[in-house]
């Protein structure tokens, strides 16, 4: 096919509408048909038909509305095929009315409702984040599978299963009422944070797809804040993600080697992101409802203060991890608290805080536990045990840059 200038422009417009409006269009259709997979199919056919029509007939004035009309027609067809029996015609009329009722110039934004559907307690917790990435952002199953280290075929199978359950069990598309909102929002925030964490775990900075995942997670976090501006934990999560993102470049040096937070050059941190994070966290704190994400963001804030004072506020960090431990009882939090104790009261105190978890089976295969142990043992002068702990940490690490970093630390022991 000859791709002329018109084709190029049509494609560009279609792509930019897809980027901007994909989730909004899926959410609009799915909220009215309850059929997420059907909405996705209808939309992808609408995009295909846009690419066929627009080069010849010109790009319409309102491309979003054009796509919605095409997708709407298609999804009514699909629902008609699925529905049989007495109530089919009534149901179809109701649905057609509902789909037609929206003013084309102002498509209602149901993305938040869609996110709550995807993060519904009736949906398997492990598939919530992938489901949100696919439906709201349009990621394909293969991309999501590679980010979450799952085989593509089983990822797409699990996504299909979840969408079938949404449709067949009538999981509602709506933002929960006040009484349930906080608890349900937690699941949405958890899914966004899971997506961010997948995108963050790339110290070499080589994997563009992962980086994209982090940016998209921040975009979703911002979307939640814009639609629910009075939720302190949503603000806390955006602050946490921005603080982490601000240090992305500083995580590696010119040679691509891993640089731990304590050795990073603060002038390489992204000031604009840190400032936005601080503002979000400040706004959250005026709402007087502390939670996990606000506390974690506050920890990052106490690290970020080093760019102004030259010193990390370890006393604050220790207190914050204490509070986090009370909420989460997470051994990962306990490790971080031990690091903070080592900074405020010395390596031996840090080690004894860590010793409380020596029998916790969840930590036996957790690299940061062994790396932390090794660092603290080394600082306390216990070279032989530090060496053994480093060996264990190196054996557990899958990222080659971090492995190199740990090997260097181990070699410096003697």
């Amino acid at each position, binding site marked *: 096919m000859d791709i002329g200038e018109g084709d190029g422009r049509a494609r560009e417009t279609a792509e930019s509408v897809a980027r901007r409006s994909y989730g909004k269009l899926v959410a609009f259709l799915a909220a009215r048909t309850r059929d997420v997979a059907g909405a996705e199919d209808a939309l992808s056919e609408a995009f295909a038909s846009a690419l066929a029509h627009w080069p010849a007939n010109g790009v319409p004035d309102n491309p979003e509305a054009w796509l919605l009309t095409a997708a709407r027609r298609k999804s009514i067809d699909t629902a008609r095929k699925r529905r*049989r*029996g007495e109530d089919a015609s009534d149901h179809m009329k109701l649905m057609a009315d509902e789909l037609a009722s929206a003013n084309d110039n102002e498509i209602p934004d149901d993305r938040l409702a869609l996110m709550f559907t995807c993060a519904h307690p*009736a949906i398997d917790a492990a598939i919530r984040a992938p489901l949100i990435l696919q439906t709201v952002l349009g990621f394909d199953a293969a991309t999501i599978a590679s980010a979450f280290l799952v085989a593509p075929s089983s990822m797409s199978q699990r996504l299909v299963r979840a969408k079938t359950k949404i449709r067949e*069990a009538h*999981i509602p598309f709506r933002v929960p009422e006040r009484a349930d909102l906080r608890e349900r929002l937690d699941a949405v925030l958890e899914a966004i944070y899971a997506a961010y964490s997948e995108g963050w775990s790339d110290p070499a900075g080589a994997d563009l797809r992962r980086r994209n995942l982090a940016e998209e997670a921040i975009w979703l976090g911002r979307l939640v804040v814009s639609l629910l501006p009075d939720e302190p934990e949503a603000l806390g999560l955006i602050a946490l993600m921005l603080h982490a993102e601000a240090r992305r470049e500083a995580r590696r040096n010119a040679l691509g080697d891993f640089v731990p937070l304590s050795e990073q050059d603060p002038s390489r941190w992204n000031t604009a992101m840190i400032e936005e994070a601080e503002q979000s966290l400040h706004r959250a704190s005026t709402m007087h409802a502390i939670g996990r994400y606000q506390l974690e963001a506050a920890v990052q804030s106490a690290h970020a203060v080093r760019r102004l004072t030259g010193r990390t506020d370890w006393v604050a960090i220790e207190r914050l991890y204490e509070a986090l431990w009370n909420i989460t009882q997470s051994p990962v939090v306990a490790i971080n608290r031990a690091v903070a104790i080592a900074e405020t009261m010395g390596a031996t105190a840090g080690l004894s805080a860590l010793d409380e978890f020596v029998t916790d089976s969840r930590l036996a295969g957790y690299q940061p536990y062994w790396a932390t142990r090794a660092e603290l043992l080394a600082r306390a002068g216990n070279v032989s045990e530090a060496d053994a702990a480093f060996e264990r940490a190196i054996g557990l690490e899958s990222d080659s840059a971090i492995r190199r970093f740990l090997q260097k630390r181990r070699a410096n022991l003697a």
Partner: protein
Amino acid sequence: MQYMLLAYTDPKGFAAMKPDDAQKAMAAYAAFGEALRKDGLLVSSNRLRPTADSTTVRIADGKTRVLNGPYAETKEELGGYFLIDVRDLDAALSWAARCPAASHGVVEVRPVWAM
């Protein structure tokens, strides 16, 4: 949209109750069913006899095999059901949480296959 609320409970727990408590427990189920009926949401409901009274039938190789007992031996067994007609899964889940079985057993919420 119809959902079947399947109440799984340990029949031993019920058998061990004093008559007074057993009556209270039964009354709680009756009140739950009544609340559903008053809201016009109840399609049907029944309490089931314990699995000791159960018989299973299976045809294999053209032969009918009749066995004493339930399909699967479990500590908690299906003790009754409520077939309800509500708006969506959230509504079904909130009714399931009010079912007494949710407090001393589990309630499984199954959407009815729409034909």
